[in-house]
């Protein structure tokens, strides 16, 4: 699977990198970080041009995020959210999520671009559905994607030789960080409930 995708990168170049980062914004299982690293490695050997790889990856990622946000905002995501909020079962949880996003939405968007990247697609949808201010979303998104693209393309450029192993390593570190953060948040919610119950 990864070999086929790497073959696509060496065969078709920039377009494949753009498509990979675009599709990864819709939670499709796409090793876009590996493909950005491949782009960096091919730039180091002179097959591709470094700045073009960065721009290609960046454009795909930002376009994908914006589509997710706008779809949720304008195609009924906001109405669905309002209806779920009206329900007793889900109201409190969603209210909490919304107030958290309202207070720290910029950081949530920025950090889910690269550090907790598996959550990115869902944060796009929630940001759109809760009508988070677009300039705020867009700014955090741009900065986050610049960070994401810079990290992986630079790593590919510098390492080159073992990008598959490097990508697997980082994938597991990011997985541990993301799952750890969710564990922490759920643990905190449980702790708060325990105190209320007393």
């Amino acid at each position: 699977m990864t070999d086929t995708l790497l073959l696509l990168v060496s065969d078709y170049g920039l377009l494949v990198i753009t498509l990979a980062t675009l599709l990864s914004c819709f939670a499709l299982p796409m090793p876009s970080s590996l493909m950005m690293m491949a782009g960096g490695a091919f730039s180091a050997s002179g097959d591709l041009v470094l700045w073009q790889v960065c721009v290609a990856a960046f454009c795909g990622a930002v376009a994908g995020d914006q589509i997710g946000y706008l779809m949720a905002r304008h195609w009924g995501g906001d109405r669905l959210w309002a209806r779920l909020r009206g329900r007793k079962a889900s109201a409190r949880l969603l209210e909490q999520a919304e107030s958290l996003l309202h207070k720290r939405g910029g950081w949530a968007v920025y950090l889910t671009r690269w550090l907790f990247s598996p959550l990115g697609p869902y944060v796009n949808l929630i940001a759109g559905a809760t009508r988070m201010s677009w300039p705020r979303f867009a700014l955090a998104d741009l900065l986050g994607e610049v960070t994401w693209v810079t990290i992986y393309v630079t790593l590919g450029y510098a390492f080159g030789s073992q990008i598959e192993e490097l990508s697997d390593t980082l994938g597991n570190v990011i997985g541990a960080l993301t799952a750890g953060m969710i564990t922490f948040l759920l643990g905190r919610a449980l702790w708060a409930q325990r105190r209320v119950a007393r």
Partner: protein
Amino acid sequence: MKRKFLLVGFALAAVLTAFFIVRAVMFMIFWMDPERGMHPVEPWMTPRYIARVYDIPREALQGILALAPGETPRVPLEKLAAQRGIGVEVLLEEIQALIDAQPPQ
């Protein structure tokens, strides 16, 4: 009822965290091994990429790939092999032999 969902979610997330930490540690051990060796040559690699990563002279590589001197297209080995009507394994083996023949640094 809601607490039950939270507990199940918490347990699942904790198990996932442990799983990823174990995998990450396994990779750390791999990186710490100085004898880990190089990644084998693969069909997706291009002539320039191979020459740079495995540090072999371009001329020797061009000889194997039947490329003119100075010709290093951005074409993966798989496609180069297909253009010549041979299996990609043949090229992989020849390049690996060339890499193995390089003096160690």
